[in-house]
Structures are given as structure tokens and as C-alpha cells.
């Protein structure tokens, strides 16, 4: 197994951990963290694939895409945090209304 493949598999692992947390947790701040971890997993796969073996020339295109991705992620995170604060100001809780609340 090459180093790149090892890191790419770790990236897939991070994505799965993030996806699990996104679905399991109800608190929105935790969901935002989970989405960020998922994004980091995707970036890790991209970066690992940029240098598939030690001899090959490192590919700058995925690197540029990751930098773009990091900036888009911070923009999305900032907007999500403000949305969470707005929801908390309205309802007093930082969770999305679930099925129980709708029924009652």
C-alpha cells in the first residue's frame, strides 16, 4: 500500500465519521462540526490523489481546488452558524424541530 492510498483511505474514514455524527447528533453546532469533518475527508482524498506515487510530479490542480474548498467551507460554516443563532433566538434551542415536537 502506498502512502497516498493510506491517506486517501483515512480521508474516506473521516467522511464516514462525519456523516455518522451528522445523522446521530441533534445539536446544530455539532452538525456543523460534522459537515466540516466530512469536507476535510474529501480534501484529504483529493490531496492524496494529487501525488499518487513518490516519483510523479505533484499535481497543483487538486491543491488549488482544496484551497477553494476550504474558503467555501468557511463561508458556509459562517452562514450556518448565523442561521443557528437566529433559530436559537427564535425558539430558545439550537436543534431542528423533530417529529415529537410536531406531533405534540
Amino acid at each position: 500500500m502506498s502512502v497516498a492510498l493510506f491517506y486517501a483511505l483515512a480521508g474516506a474514514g473521516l467522511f464516514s465519521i462525519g456523516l455518522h455524527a451528522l445523522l446521530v447528533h441533534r445539536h446544530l453546532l455539532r452538525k456543523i462540526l460534522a459537515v466540516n469533518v466530512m469536507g476535510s475527508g474529501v480534501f484529504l482524498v483529493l490531496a492524496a490523489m494529487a501525488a499518487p506515487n513518490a516519483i510523479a510530479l505533484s499535481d497543483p490542480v487538486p491543491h488549488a481546488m482544496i484551497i477553494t474548498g476550504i474558503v467555501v467551507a468557511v463561508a458556509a460554516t459562517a452562514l450556518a452558524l448565523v442561521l443557528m443563532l437566529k433559530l436559537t433566538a427564535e425558539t430558545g434551542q439550537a436543534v431542528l424541530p423533530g417529529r415529537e415536537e410536531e406531533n405534540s
Partner: protein
Amino acid sequence: METLISWAIDVALVLLVVSLAWRALASTDLFKAIVLFIAFGLVLTLVWVRLNATDVALAEAAIGAGVTGALLLAAYAKLRATSPDAIVDRAGGISGIGAISLLILILLVAAALGYAVWTLPSDYAGLGKEVAANLDQSGVSNPVTAVLLNFRGYDTLLEIMVLLLALLGAWSLGITIPRPEAAPGLVLDTLSRLLVPLLILVAAYLLWVGAHAPGGAFQAGAVLAAAGVLMLLSGRELPAALATWPLRLALVLGPATFLMLAVITLILEGRVLKLSPEWAGRLILIIETTATISIGVTLTALFMGAPPGEEDR
């Protein structure tokens, strides 16, 4: 022996990254989760260095760990100020059979992703050769900057627009900012006086060096935002005279310059953001300088969360 040490470092880093991510997402205390997430970002920075992606490492340290961490902590503080109940993360919307079937589903997804990554061809060439062959036409000698601002400039144009849109979205929600509870201590005050000029200098350096070495507009903008956040934290406010149109101008300076260049190149060269080789170096510097200012101001404004001067409404 050398490969063994190198492998040991890689394995240790990956274990650390995965366990930090796991603990950040599983710890019961939200504050702890945020701090662990920032640590996760910093260790990830080392991973980028191991993968020879120094530009990405700088962006991760400045934006991924730095600015995101500041935003998360600020949101946590505001959440606590809004309602003490809101920072308690009650466990589990899902339990019993639901949790088990979800776990099985996630494991299936993980296995499928792992298989997909495993079967990726390892002998493809990528675009490294093409970028290297055209690098002397791009006006800069750092291949990542060449891709970001010349070969795939439209990506970066859209990305700057996304950043501006996020701020407009955040502002339009009309969150009120609670006043800072206490005056900053002597240490924070002195430290910010020392650090802010230094941070501005570092930002200028990162901007300039991006043409031929790791660095560039986004890293520089994030460092500039760090200076802005530090000033806000130490109790300084944007003077009312600057909070109106000068702030708006700083916000749109980068996107507007970039957009204007896109239109001009479309008319003159017939293709959006096609930079002619003899002008490319100077044009990239102009785009990057204006973008750095706008990125720095936008990220600082996102940290504030609401347009300045509207705290008291």
C-alpha cells in the same frame, strides 16, 4: 530505516487526525468539541505538509483552523448569551434499533468509499505536466497560484462571490450582537497592539510571496482577518465614519475588480479571464491585492455577525 520512520510518522498523524475528529464529534461538552475541532485542523495542517501541499497547509492553518475556530467560539459565546439551555447537547434523537441500522448503513458507506478509493488507478499522470509546461505563460512561478488565478481563474472568481454572498446572507438575518461583557485585560490589550502590525506585515508578505512560493491571497486575507478579530476582541470598534460606505467598498473591492477584469478579458481576448502572458503577472498581483483586502474584511465582518453600528437596535 528511513521509510520505516516515514511510515511511523504517517501512521501516527492519521491516527491522531481520526481520533481527534472522532472525539470532537463524540464529546458531550460542546466547548470541548470546538477546541478538539481546532486541534483537528492544526494536525490536518501537518498532514498537508506530509502530502507536499504546502499551499493547502497554509490555507488550512489560517482559514480552516484559525478563522473557523474563531467563528465557532464566537458562535458558542453568543449561543450561551442567548440561552444557557442552548449549549447543552442532549444525547440522541435516535436510539435502539434505529441507531444500529444507522451504524450498519454508515459502515456500508465507508466500505463503498474505501473500495472506490482503493480501486482508483495509481498510474494516472494528472495535470502536473500541463501546468509545468504552461507555467512561464502564467505570469507567476508558483504552480498553485498559476492554477488559482490564471488557468482556473473563474473558480476563484466564483469562490470570492460565495464569500461575499455568505456575508450578505449573514447580515440579512439581522442578528443582534451582545455587547462585550468586560473590558479586555492588560495582557490582551498589549498583545493586540504588538501583534496587529505584525499580522498586517505577515499578510503583505504572504500576498507577495504567493507569486513564486507557497502563499497567496486567501492565506494573506485570513491573516488580515486574524488582525481584525484580535482588534475586535480587545474591545476596539470600527469608527462610525468607516462603518458606512468605506466598509462596503472594502467588501466589494476584490469581487468588483475581479469581475471587471473578467468582462474586460471577455471583450478584448474573447474568453473570460484569459490573461495575456506579458500582462498576467501584474494583473494577478492587482487581483490578489484587492482580493486580500476584501477577504480579510469579509472574514472579520463574518466574525462580527452583523453590520457594525446596528448593535443597539
